[in-house]
């Protein structure tokens, strides 16, 4: 007979706060009615900020609920990142909601509930926790992909995401059932312990299926098919959200699964991760070249970026994990900044999404052109911007682990990728002008400026960030 102790709740304090807060905001929204979007949005950002500050000032540590949930330095850092990503995504939707009649107070609430799911994913230490957190996040994401239900593209994106997501959940569950069947445990520590004995074929099958299911969530090749369509079809603030926080949570979950549960089978999963990394980098680099829609381009860019981050994971060393952590921090800053600029691509007659619409931006709005240029150069990996250091650390870790072929392919893919990022810069600065955009909304300016300053002056904060990332990575070694 097990007993339940209330002290355990401190481990999941921020999750509880967000869940209860989301329910309270839901009541508020329902009672005030359709005009409540602004209030609920503001309060949602405040709620996320409180949860984030709670994590920073009073970080709990240890495990709870019989080892189902784990709170360690790695989880703490990733949780803070996820909360920042979600809060920024909600904030960036304010002006869009006003201009496009996107008056749905449920949107910020669903984002908060998705964030709760992501926080649980990040600190999952049990297959059941992992699955429940993942489903909670995914279910909320399916709905917000289709939230603009009068638009054919948005509903198509939601449906496509839902069907493929359900398929990947099925694969994940199959893998989990095999792992449970062959180890007798759902807890990561138990699985790792049972795995040190010689592995059976069924266990390897299980690992493959679990990794395939998670690869879908981080949109790594060959499970990337949904990404471009969902990115293009979903409303732009939703796309901005999709590209930041869920990717970080899924990557953190992947790191924890491979190091927490599958650590003894390192040779098995290393091959799979290496393959996925190479395929993602390659496809992300080449498929993005022909894109004309900037949201689709960002979808392929995120596929390629996940490939680069996986290079660090494939290294299988502490440097590799700290490289992944740094990569995700920098990726989030770059992608949120880029989407702040994409959300500002609005003329008097509505949003535009074509890359050619950016031509002449350097004359009509030099500050926005400058910010977007910083992000594009950073994504391309030009030193001394943040994106260069992100790639530098993961490739360094790969080379230290003697994965030379993987590193060379990665650098080549990065060169190909530089072509389409720099093409956008060329269109902005050297092509003749399209009509000017309407002035950028205040919250977009804030997010864009913070991200641009971070990206440009990354070298000044590189030291402390590396220390934090190394501390997080040490959790697993």
């Amino acid at each position, binding site marked *: 007979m097990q007993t*339940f102790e209330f002290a355990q709740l401190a481990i999941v304090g921020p999750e509880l706060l967000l869940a209860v807060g989301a329910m309270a905001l839901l009541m508020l929204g329902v009672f005030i009615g359709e005009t409540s979007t602004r209030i609920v949005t503001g309060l949602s950002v405040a709620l996320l900020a409180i949860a984030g500050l709670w994590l920073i000032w009073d970080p709990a540590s240890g495990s709870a609920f*019989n080892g189902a949930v784990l709170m360690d330095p790695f989880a703490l850092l990733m949780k803070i990142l996820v909360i920042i990503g979600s809060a920024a995504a909600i904030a960036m939707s304010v002006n869009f909601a006003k201009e496009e009649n996107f008056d749905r107070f*449920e949107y910020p609430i669903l984002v908060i*509930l998705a964030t709760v799911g992501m926080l649980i994913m990040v600190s999952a230490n049990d297959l059941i926790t992992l699955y*429940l957190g993942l489903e909670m996040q995914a*279910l909320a994401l399916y*709905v917000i992909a289709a939230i603009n239900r009068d638009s054919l593209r948005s509903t198509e994106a939601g449906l496509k995401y839902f069907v493929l997501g359900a398929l990947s959940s099925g694969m994940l569950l199959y893998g989990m059932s095999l792992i449970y*069947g062959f180890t007798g445990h759902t807890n990561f520590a*138990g699985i790792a312990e049972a795995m040190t004995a010689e592995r059976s074929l069924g266990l390897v099958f299980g690992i493959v299926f679990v990794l395939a299911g998670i690869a879908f969530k981080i949109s790594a090749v060959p499970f990337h098919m949904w990404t471009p369509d969902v990115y293009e079809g979903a409303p732009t603030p939703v796309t901005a959200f999709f590209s930041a926080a869920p990717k970080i949570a899924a990557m953190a979950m992947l790191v924890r699964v491979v190091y927490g549960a599958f650590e003894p089978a390192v040779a098995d999963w290393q091959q799979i991760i290496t393959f996925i990394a190479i395929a993602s980098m390659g496809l992300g680099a080449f498929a993005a070249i022909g894109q004309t829609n900037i949201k689709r381009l960002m979808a392929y860019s995120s596929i390629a970026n996940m490939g680069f981050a996986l290079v660090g994971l494939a290294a299988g060393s502490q440097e590799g994990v700290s490289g992944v952590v740094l990569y995700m921090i920098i990726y989030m800053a770059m992608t949120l900044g880029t989407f702040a600029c994409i959300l500002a691509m609005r003329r008097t007659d509505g949003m535009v999404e074509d890359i050619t619409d950016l031509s002449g931006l350097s004359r009509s709005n030099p500050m926005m052109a400058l910010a977007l240029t910083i992000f594009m150069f950073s994504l391309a990996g030009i030193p001394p911007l943040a994106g260069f250091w992100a790639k530098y650390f993961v490739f360094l870790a790969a080379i230290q682990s003697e994965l030379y072929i993987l590193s060379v392919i990665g650098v080549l893919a990065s060169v190909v990728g530089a072509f389409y990022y720099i093409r956008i810069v060329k269109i902005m600065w050297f092509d003749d002008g399209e009509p000017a955009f309407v002035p950028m909304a205040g919250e977009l300016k804030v997010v864009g400026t913070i991200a641009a300053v971070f990206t440009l002056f990354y070298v000044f904060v590189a030291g402390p960030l590396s220390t934090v990332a190394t501390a997080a990575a040490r959790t697993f070694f």
Partner: protein
Amino acid sequence: MGVAALFFYLFATICVASAFMVIASRNPVHSVLFLILCFFNAAGLFMLTGAEFLALILIVVYVGAVAVLFLFVVMMLDVDFAELRDGFLQYMPIGAVIGIILAVELILVLGGLSFDPEIAARAVQPIPDLAEVSNIQAIGDLLYTKYIFFFQLCGLILLVAMIGAIVLTLSHRPDVRRQNIADQVARDPNDVELRSVKPGEGI
């Protein structure tokens, strides 16, 4: 081979056969009815293993609520199922490949004992003796203590699903006439005109 084995094969055969009929029958209403038959037989299988609580829950929840809801949906929606089935042959090869992969997996799971004889020894949670605790107590002991976090999390997921369903379907259209219970209750019987309507003619 006793009575229990006889019933096991009876329930199992009908279960598999009716599951096949769910996807094979042309009429969607028949599909749902076969699904109900399948649930009943699965409940019978649970009974045989001594899990009577699960057996009854299966019937109450799945037959009583879920399958009846399916039936409503199938009858209400005007979906041309024959048309949906048109592309069936086209996807047959890929379906067969997936089927073979799943079959291999099932063999792996079921044949796990011969692949790895030590599995049974590693099980972390032994099944409690049926003579000591009842079904409901055995489930409750786990669900509300060890798995309380998962249990609550499932509730939260259901909340997300509910919000999602409302967000995606509920619309406040002014031209739709809604039921106003206060108006109905406050109606004066003297204002109501009663007419006898002949069958098939209308007013």
